[in-house]
Every structure is written in structure tokens, then in C-alpha cells.
């Protein structure tokens, strides 16, 4: 028996593992610092941690509302539902909720903390400009995000980064907490400084991780649909279409953009280190490599 027509991308997986390891390392140091800093600081960590957990459970609802998206029943969008039904069979996941956002900006995203609580959302703009095969590729990309549990993994990866960010922004509320014998506890200023550093480093690592997950999702989409070229052509069409859309339409929250098929602010000049999505040319290039692998099969 021959292996399946797509091999494995071990290089990508190795980079992903390394990034996760580094991220974990930063967080271990971060927690260690708080434990060493004593009771007041630890309370601060717990309170902000609870905020972060709350965010995890409410993020999908907030996100959908922010995009002005509404859930659609099969009767309202039969074609879209039929397409997603088939992709779910191929990907072997339960059917996510289907939502449509009424905006001309061509985009698609997946949200939800688990496979059972997932929503796939497309904009009316993307349904207009893409052919059915291209739209299928894009939705397969989003479905792969669900299969790979990317929302949960990225939320988990960003857990301490968001706590660090919260402390850096609101830490002064807890300024008096150090209390008691100020000689043993590091001052509040040090906690702020450490938080800022942790946030900066983990932010960069997370952006890298997000880019790797995007490549993995592109690959998964090709695997589900068997048509890498269709997704490549969709990415190309979206990227050329994005530039014509005025900037004031793009008010999507930064956190949500991690799950967009294409980041809302598409600028070639954005430093690669800080982008959540890999550059379009690289994604298309890799999809074309998959297509080549497919064509050369046997």
C-alpha cells in the first residue's frame, strides 16, 4: 500500500516544538519570579489569571459580536452549509456553527475553545469574490484550525502573556499589595518591569507560533480538499482584493486576527517578526510545492 499523497512536514513541526519550548521556558521563569516575590504578588497573579480564564470562555461570543456576525441556519445559506457538511466529513469533526458577517472585507475565521464549541465565520465579501472551489479551500483552512485546536492552543500559549500584559497595564491597582516587610519583597516597579519583559518576549514567540500554525492549517486544507492550488488562488485573490478596501473598515480586534484567513492590515512593510500570518508569497509558494508533490505522485 502506498502512503497518502501528502508527506509530513517535519521541519515545520520541529520549529513549532522549539517555539513552544521557549515559550514554556519564559513562563516557568515568570511564575518562578512571582512565587519568589511572595504572597501579595501571587494574589495578583491569581486574580489576573481568573480574568484570562473568563476571556477564554467568552472569547468566541465577543469575537462574533465584534465582527457583526450572525449564525445562519441551513435554510438561510444552503450552499455554504452543504459545503461545510462535506468538509466536516472529510476532516472527521462534528459540524461547527456557521456564521456570516455582513461586510465587504473578504475574510474568514474560526473561533471557539473546542471542536464541540466551534464557529466558522465567513464574510459576505469573501463569498462574493471567490469561486466555490476557492471558498472551499479557505473554509477547509478554517476547519483545520478547529481540527488542530488552534484557538485553545493559542489561548493557552498566550495565557501568561496576557496576564503579563494585564499587570503591565493595570498593575498599579495592586501597587499597595506588597505590604508588610518591604525589605524581602521586590518592589512593585520590579514586578511591572518583569511583566513587560515577559510580555515582549512571549509576544514575539507567540507570533512565530501563530505563523507556524497558519502553515499547518494551509497544509491541512490541502489535505482535506485535495486542491492546494484552489487555496493558493484564493489567497492570491484575497490579498489583491484587500488592498483596495479602505483602512477605516478594519477595526477588528488584534486578538481575533490570529484566526483570520488573512490579517486585516496587509502591509508588506510590517516586520516579519511581529506578523501573526506568514507572508502571502510564502504561503502560496508552499501550497504550490504541495501541488507539485501531488502531481509527481507515484
Amino acid at each position: 500500500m502506498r502512503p497518502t499523497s501528502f508527506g509530513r512536514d517535519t521541519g515545520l513541526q520541529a520549529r513549532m516544538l522549539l517555539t513552544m519550548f521557549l515559550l514554556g521556558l519564559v513562563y516557568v521563569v515568570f511564575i518562578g519570579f512571582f512565587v519568589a516575590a511572595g504572597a501579595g504578588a501571587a494574589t495578583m497573579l491569581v486574580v489576573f489569571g481568573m480574568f484570562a480564564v473568563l476571556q477564554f470562555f467568552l472569547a468566541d461570543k465577543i469575537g462574533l459580536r465584534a465582527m457583526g456576525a450572525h449564525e445562519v441556519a441551513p435554510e438561510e445559506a444552503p450552499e455554504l452549509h452543504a459545503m461545510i457538511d462535506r468538509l466536516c466529513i472529510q476532516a472527521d469533526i462534528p459540524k461547527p456553527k456557521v456564521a456570516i458577517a455582513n461586510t465587504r472585507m473578504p475574510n474568514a475565521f474560526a473561533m471557539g475553545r473546542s471542536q464541540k464549541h466551534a464557529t466558522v465565520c465567513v464574510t459576505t465579501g469573501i463569498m462574493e469574490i471567490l469561486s466555490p472551489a476557492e471558498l472551499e479551500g479557505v473554509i477547509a483552512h478554517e476547519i483545520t484550525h478547529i481540527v488542530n485546536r488552534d484557538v485553545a492552543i493559542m489561548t493557552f500559549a498566550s495565557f501568561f502573556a496576557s496576564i503579563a500584559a494585564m499587570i503591565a497595564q493595570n498593575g498599579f491597582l495592586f501597587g499597595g499589595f506588597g505590604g508588610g516587610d518591604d525589605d524581602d519583597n521586590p518592589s512593585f516597579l520590579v514586578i511591572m518591569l518583569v511583566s513587560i519583559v515577559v510580555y515582549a518576549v512571549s509576544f514575539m514567540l507567540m507570533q512565530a507560533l501563530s505563523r507556524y500554525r497558519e502553515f499547518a492549517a494551509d497544509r491541512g486544507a490541502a489535505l482535506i480538499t485535495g486542491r492546494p492550488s484552489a487555496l493558493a488562488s484564493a489567497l492570491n485573490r484575497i490579498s489583491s482584493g484587500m488592498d483596495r478596501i479602505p483602512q477605516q473598515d478594519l477595526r477588528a480586534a488584534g486578538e481575533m486576527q490570529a484566526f483570520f484567513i488573512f490579517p486585516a492590515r496587509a502591509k508588506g512593510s510590517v516586520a516579519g517578526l511581529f506578523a501573526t500570518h506568514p507572508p502571502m508569497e510564502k504561503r502560496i509558494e508552499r501550497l504550490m510545492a504541495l501541488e507539485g508533490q501531488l502531481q509527481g505522485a507515484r
Partner: protein
Amino acid sequence: MGFLDSILGRGKAPVKASADRLFAMSTAGITLEASQSITTRGAAALVFQPLATGDFRTVLEEVEGILRGTGEETGSTIDTHEDAHGYRWMIIRDPDLEDLVVGLNSVMGSLETSGYADRVLCAVFAFEDERGTALYFIYNAKRGTWYPFVPVAAEKRDSEREMQLRAALGTELPFEAQLERWFPLWGIPI
């Protein structure tokens, strides 16, 4: 899918062949006819995504050749249908349910040995009751499970009838336990 697979974003593990689960249809068909007067419409189809590659085309041509060869003995005929979603239906027509099951199994087997098991969406068997209403049994090739599908009018399904069909067959067919995975297939051409 394993934990590590999801951590590494590596997608699903390769699909395992489960031929006996497909073959369960031949005995289930006998029960359907005896207890429900439901008979085959003499057609079944394999639904898959055709890849635009030379190798895939060659594999398909070989499969069709084999089917036409055995068809000369059994009297089955084959034809293909492209649906609006870009999937291809390889339709086998034969009044004998057993021949349909064997035929579809050989197509599925060839796709699997050539490494294209991932491209198969499902297999569909068409039945009808004594009033001529179409009833379908869909085989989810990824999970090796079956579920009934009874479309009525445009994009409406008769879930009650589907439940009855499942109850009538009980454990004779490995049914899909999760009802939310009973995905509809509108516009079945058989």
C-alpha cells in the same frame, strides 16, 4: 487524533480500511426487504474528490476497467456524475445489492492501495419503500459508520423516518452514534 498530532498541527492519522463494515450492508439489505418491504433502487455510488493529477486519473481508469470487466459477468453498469460541489460520483447500477456492495468495495480498495483513501467522502446506497419514496444509506468512509438519509422536498429531511430505519436495523449495521454527524447530502443523483 492523538494529542501530539493536535499540538503539532499535523492533521489526522491515515484512514484504516474497514471493508467488513461496508459489507454489513448486504445482510442489512435482506432485513430491510423482509421486514420493511424496502428494496434497493439498483444503484449505489462512491463519492470522492477527483484530483487533477495524471496518477489519479490512471488509478481511476484502472478501477473503471476492472468494474467493466466484472460487469460483463454480473450485468452491472457504471457511470460517473460530477456534482455542484466538485465531487465525483462513481455510480454502479445493478439490481442485485450484493453486486453493488462488492463493486463499491473494489473501488474503495483500489483508491486505498493507491494512497487516495483520504479523497473518499462517502458511499451512498439507494433504496425505496413500497410507495416509491427514496431512502438512502450513507457510509462515512472516514469513520466506517452508516446513517440513513431520507430527503423530502427541497433541503428538508424526514428525521423521524431516519430514526425508524435505524431502529429497524438495530445492530445489523454499524450506525453512526453521534446524530450531529448524520450529514445530509442534497441532490443525490441516484
